[in-house]
């Protein structure tokens, strides 16, 4: 465990949370840092939608194979078990015969993952989701790493419920739906940008996130503006082909 990286990460996450922030961008940062800190290959935050499914809110990669692994866990897998029991669920070697989740284990192994952890996101007596970690090396996770992983899952919970009055139990459900819808807005914007600029979804996501950061806007707001409007301001002029500038007008 790199203790400097650990302290930097918590400072960074805490810094984000004292200001206004975009919840999906925050969860995305958290999955990126989970990968770096815990020697994981990939990480994702999966939320429990009361409609009766687990939905990914953020992942360290937008790669389709990884997203499919989260999707699969609606039938079987560590996140489903974690959500049902409210306890951490780990599997040390997915390449062996896996009685618990044969379909999930096979798909995970195909993506090059040997071990998986699902750490519960708890609020009082409710489990609202899980932090899902995938690693390429077999073997049990270091107990110290597991504790840090759980702390990151707890930070994800706090971030998700930010600036909401969670005195009312209902406020948790309201905030969860807002986060899930934000994710949908971002997916719609990724599609629009991918089609307009002929780039892939991963690249479209990074462009959206970079633009939001560079212009000090929330990721969801940038995505919403793009989907709703004719979005004349996106992509920003610097990223547009020069041919789109109206002729006969000098740039200022």
């Amino acid at each position, binding site marked *: 465990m790199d203790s400097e990286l650990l302290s930097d990460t918590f400072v960074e996450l805490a810094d984000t949370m004292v200001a206004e922030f975009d919840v999906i961008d925050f969860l995305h940062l958290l999955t990126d840092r989970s990968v770096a800190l815990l020697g994981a290959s990939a990480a994702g935050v999966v939320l429990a939608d009361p409609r009766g499914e687990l939905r990914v809110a953020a992942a360290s990669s937008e790669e389709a194979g990884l997203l499919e692994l989260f999707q699969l866990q609606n039938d079987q897998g560590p996140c489903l078990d974690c959500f049902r029991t409210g306890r951490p669920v780990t599997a040390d070697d997915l390449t062996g015969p896996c009685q618990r989740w044969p379909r999930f284990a096979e798909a995970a192994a195909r993506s090059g993952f040997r071990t998986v952890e699902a750490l519960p996101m708890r609020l009082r007596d409710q489990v609202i989701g899980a932090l899902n970690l995938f690693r390429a090396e077999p073997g049990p996770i270091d107990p110290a790493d597991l504790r840090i992983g759980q702390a990151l899952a707890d930070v994800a919970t706090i971030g998700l419920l930010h600036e909401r009055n969670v005195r009312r139990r209902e406020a948790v459900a309201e905030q969860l739906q807002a986060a899930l819808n934000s994710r949908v807005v971002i997916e*719609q914007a990724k*599609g629009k940008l991918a089609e307009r600029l002929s780039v892939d979804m991963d690249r479209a996501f990074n462009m959206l996130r970079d633009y939001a950061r560079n212009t000090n806007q929330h990721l969801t707001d940038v995505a919403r503006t793009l989907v709703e409007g004719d979005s004349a301001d996106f992509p920003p002029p610097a990223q547009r082909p020069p041919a789109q500038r109206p002729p006969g007008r000098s740039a200022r």
Partner: protein
Amino acid sequence: MTDPRGVVVWGWLAAHAAAQGRRVSLADVCAVAVSSAELTGAWLAVARGSGPDFVMCVTDPSGEQLAELQLMLGEGPCHDVLASAAPVLAADLGDAEFSRRWPAFIPAARQLGAGAVFAFPLIVGAIRAGVLGLYRGAPGPLSDRQLGDLLILADAATVMVLGGVHGDGDSDGDGDGDGDGEAGTTLNGQAPDLALHRAEIDQATGMLTVQLDVSAGEAFARLRAYAYSQQRRLADVAGDIVARRLRLDRDPGQDGGP
């Protein structure tokens, strides 16, 4: 896992509509929402802009008054759900938090006999279609199961509003009645397909706004209409669009739309 909950809830809608001898409509959504979550009444308002615009259907006079009241006052849970893109679950209107939030609406709503108001936005990402509002005379929370079912019913209503289904079980220019063997399993030419959520559906919707040069709401409706006309699963069609194996044509007639 057993049947996705969406399939179960859709079954209720289909059964309710069949009992009235008509196709599934927004009126069924309101009625099923009230009975399944043990509520007193419901209303459904559609949105053209950022707030609710007009009331499409109601289950009872108090429900109608609660809906109209919010339009008149320009405040209340139905406005907030569209602004925050999240449900508002006001389980006890006596809670001081709500009087501060809606100073004009709360006393009037309590006068009308509402103890709890629950409002669900009819939204898909950046697409806003309206609001499903519900009230109960007695205060008290929804169970997790009721909450999940109401979210699914709001999704069904969103699909209907975006697909042009009206409140009374009939719709524009759709005169083919409900005598086809599929009544109850289709929705005015749209497969209900309220099964598991897939990111590809949202991505494909975004791509179609550019391909078809339409709003996101229209892109969403065209995607569903295409999947239905081809008798294919929505997620599969969306997957083909995202993988760039399929493009839809700007003229709906060309891609097999209605």
